[in-house]
């Protein structure tokens, strides 16, 4: 094993490097210059993101415990893009006085979780996968509790860490059963040895619920809304987009590569869970007034839509999941971006506060509207393409009933997304949010998201590229 082999770990290594750079600057910068870490982090991460796109050799190291393929590197790049946007969006929030001494923590913790996710995605062995998943979760709990002086932040932190501990416990218990029946923890060996027998199914279901927790699928979703609401906006957006996207990626990889043999079982599971998730997510989102909570439930429902790509086990399915994740990253980050700008400037987070927003802040309203339309799947924005292709993927395998339930659910979803649009454009308000100028970093973040929302849909080459890198069972 030569040193060159480590280049397959480029994403992880780069991130680690970036992590170290931030750590060192932390150490060597004076108190008054700490704010500059923000810009440094953004720049470094931009470089990491760009470098991630360079061609990469495929391969595996550590005795196939770590595998890098073009698919995984695509997934990592997508996560990088999302994280970059989150970094940009966090810029002004981190500038607050109370956050000043902990700016580097924020970046380091986020990068750590991203490293964890990258390991998760590249895992070839359940141990690597487990380490990745914990690395991606534990720092997030710390991040959720980032705002030390707010009750809600602390509550979000404890809810996240304890729920995730329970979920990883159950996941591990499931894994132990799978290990007991298959005798290995290597993906490739498990895949070969897995059989349709009760213990395996039980193990798989436990494993499944652990993953479902990560993706916040019903009924394992209950932490989601509380954590999103309590956590700082940017952490919530990271949780809802990057964390969920990564979970979806690794979940589809594991389903496709480790459990193809018991597809008959997990298809049914996913069918049930998808219906539950979409429906319950929508029903909860319907009533929400707090924007973060609202987006939390909407993201639960969105997670349900991801499952439509899982269910067929087909190449198109994986394509659409990755594609939709990309679209979803842009859309949801745009939404969270607007929420975060408004929360930052005015401290208001309720949907009622958005009444009449268009008349005072047209730019933000348009961005929010596009985001909502994209999430709802309205043309011509990317969400339409994403949803359409997801449905195509499910329909390809003949899951028409599921597709019908899902499309009918899009109507409920449309209803609550339109409520936001209604608040901004239609409702009148005695005391609307005052006109304000967003800082250039927020603008940049939103601009990237909006460009993504618009371009990703029409640019078929993106879809085709993803398709070429995807595989089915």
């Amino acid at each position, binding site marked *: 094993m030569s040193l060159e082999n480590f280049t397959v770990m480029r994403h992880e290594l780069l991130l680690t490097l970036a992590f170290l750079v931030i750590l060192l600057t932390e150490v060597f910068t004076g108190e008054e210059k700490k704010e500059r870490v923000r810009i440094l982090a953004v720049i470094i991460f931009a470089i990491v993101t760009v470098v991630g796109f360079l061609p990469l050799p495929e391969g595996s190291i550590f005795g196939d415990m770590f595998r890098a393929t073009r698919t995984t590197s695509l997934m990592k790049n997508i996560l990088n893009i999302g994280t970059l946007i989150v970094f940009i969006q966090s810029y002004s929030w981190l500038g607050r006085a109370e956050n000043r001494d902990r700016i580097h923590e924020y970046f380091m913790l986020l990068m750590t979780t991203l490293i964890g996710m990258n390991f998760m995605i590249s895992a070839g062995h359940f141990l690597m996968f487990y380490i990745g998943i914990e690395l991606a979760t534990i720092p997030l709990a710390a991040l959720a509790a980032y705002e030390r002086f707010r009750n809600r932040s602390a509550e979000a932190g404890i809810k996240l860490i304890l729920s995730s501990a329970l979920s990883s416990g159950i996941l591990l218990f499931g894994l132990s059963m799978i290990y007991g029946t298959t005798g290995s923890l290597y993906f490739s060996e498990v895949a070969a040895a897995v059989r349709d027998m009760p213990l395996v199914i039980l193990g798989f279901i436990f494993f499944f619920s652990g993953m479902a927790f990560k993706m916040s699928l019903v009924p394992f979703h209950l932490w989601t809304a509380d954590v999103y609401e309590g956590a700082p906006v940017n952490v919530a957006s990271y949780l809802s987009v990057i964390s969920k996207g990564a979970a979806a990626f690794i979940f589809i990889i594991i389903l496709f590569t480790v459990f193809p043999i018991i597809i008959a079982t997990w298809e049914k599971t996913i069918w049930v869970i998808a219906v539950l998730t979409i429906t319950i997510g929508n029903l909860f989102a319907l009533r929400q007034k707090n924007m973060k909570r609202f987006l939390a439930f909407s993201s639960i429902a969105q997670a349900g839509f991801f499952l439509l790509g899982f269910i067929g086990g087909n190449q198109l399915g994986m394509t659409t999941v990755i594609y939709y994740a990309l679209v979803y990253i842009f859309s949801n980050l745009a939404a969270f971006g607007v929420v975060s700008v408004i929360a930052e400037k005015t401290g208001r987070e309720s949907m009622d506060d958005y009444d009449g927003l268009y008349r005072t802040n047209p730019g933000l309203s348009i961005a929010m509207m596009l985001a909502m339309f994209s999430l709802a799947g309205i043309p011509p924005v990317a969400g339409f393409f994403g949803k*359409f292709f997801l449905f195509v993927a499910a329909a390809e395998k003949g899951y028409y009933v599921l597709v019908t339930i899902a499309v009918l659910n899009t109507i409920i979803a449309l209803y609550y997304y339109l409520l936001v649009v209604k608040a901004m454009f239609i409702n009148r308000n005695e005391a609307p949010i005052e006109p304000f100028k967003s800082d250039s970093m927020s603008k940049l973040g939103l601009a990237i998201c909006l460009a993504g929302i618009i371009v990703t849909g029409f640019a078929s080459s993106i879809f085709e590229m993803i398709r070429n890198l995807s595989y089915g069972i």
Partner: protein
Amino acid sequence: MSILTWLVIIPLLTITGILFVKDARQAKIVSAFGMGIQLIVSAVIVYSYVALRNAGVTDEMVMISSYEWFRSLNIYYTVGVDGISVAMIALTSVVVFAGIFASWEMDDLRKEFFISLILLATGVFGFFISLDLFTMFLFYELAVIPMYILIGIWGSGPKEYAAMKLTLMLMGGSALLMVGLFGIYFNSAPDGGELTFNIIEISKITIPIEAQRWFFPFTFVGFGVLGALFPLHTWSPDGHSSAPTAVSMLHAGVLMKLGGYGAFRVAMFLMPEAANEMAWIFIILTTISVVYGAFGAIVQKDLKYINAYSSVSHCGMVLFAVLMMNRTAMTGAVIQMISHGLMTALFFALIGMIYGRTHTRMINEMGGLMKVIPFLGVAYVIAGLASLGLPGLSGFVAEMNIFFGAFEHPDTFRRVATIIAVSSIVITAVYILRVIAILLLGSIRDHHFDLLDDAKWYEKLSIVSLLAGIIYIGMAPLHLSDIIRESVMPIVDKLL
């Protein structure tokens, strides 16, 4: 680039233009200019279509151009027209043009209004030129969604409720439609080969009958919601009554036609066997629509409600005719779409103009308006007469084609349905005359109305452009009907 694509590009350019004008007042000038050009382009398309046909081109679709889009799913941006779409394009551009002028006095958020309106129009144009189900669906939804904003912001009455209901019901329809499209797509290559969304390609194969049985209802009902198929029409009264003038015009005039157009261009053309099997269910529903809408209109007091129910009746007639599946009835359906599009747009324009003057839409609060606003009054009467199917105006031509086509079937069921549908012409007369009598005739009930002004130049322009269409079709229907008669043949041939 095909000239058809300009139909999508021009509105988009117009929108860009509106974005860049400083003065919101200029927005309407830019819109009017853009839509004027659109009207000219439509005229050129009609002309070149006729020229092509005269030159002996017998292809089902002409002016086809196609660009690859999503290669792996075989999705193309494919446009092309036949006589039906050409006619619909012409209708749309006239109605949009008239709509711009009908909203000349829009004062609140004017730029946004025109942008949304033209975006809606873009969707409609795109829908009519699309030959690829994916793009067609995309444009379909694109046309529906601006309605929410348009009604919500610039509407009146319970606008939020109406806008939400309308949007959700229409999108519900499109959700069903989407399932139907998937069914079509995945059965578009029953003998192996590449799946396709291309309508012409699919029409060449036969979708397995089992699949048709499943997906025909989805597709038909999906389009039917927009075509006000009973009992899924209830978005129409509320939506129309709350919408601002130009939106009602466009929506009732053009958007509802998407339903009828899609119903035969997609649902029936691609799944003819199932269409034949299930026609009876929908014939019953549409017959109910026709009579029910008319009866519903009789007792309404709000002008817009009357017209909305009337639209239910008339659009029911479109679907009714479509389901009769022969050349005459299909021709009638298309002419009815155009005729109804023109006259209902005219109605809504007039209602908007009257409302703008009297600030009420309740017929019993008005009266004798013919004296003070003769131009609008006369136009209203003509629209009414067109609506009740007076010869010499467009409605008659359409209805006769429909009745004769429907009656051509020798079976008793269809004939009885036809006779029931024919009865709507009497009921229509009742409510139209009732409105005219209460609204325009008699003595003036409120003395504030003595001082009303008659139509302004832009209102006249709007009205005259619609009236011209109604009268032209009514007086010399042969051109239009021959163009359409040729074009419905491929569809009818498949259905037989």
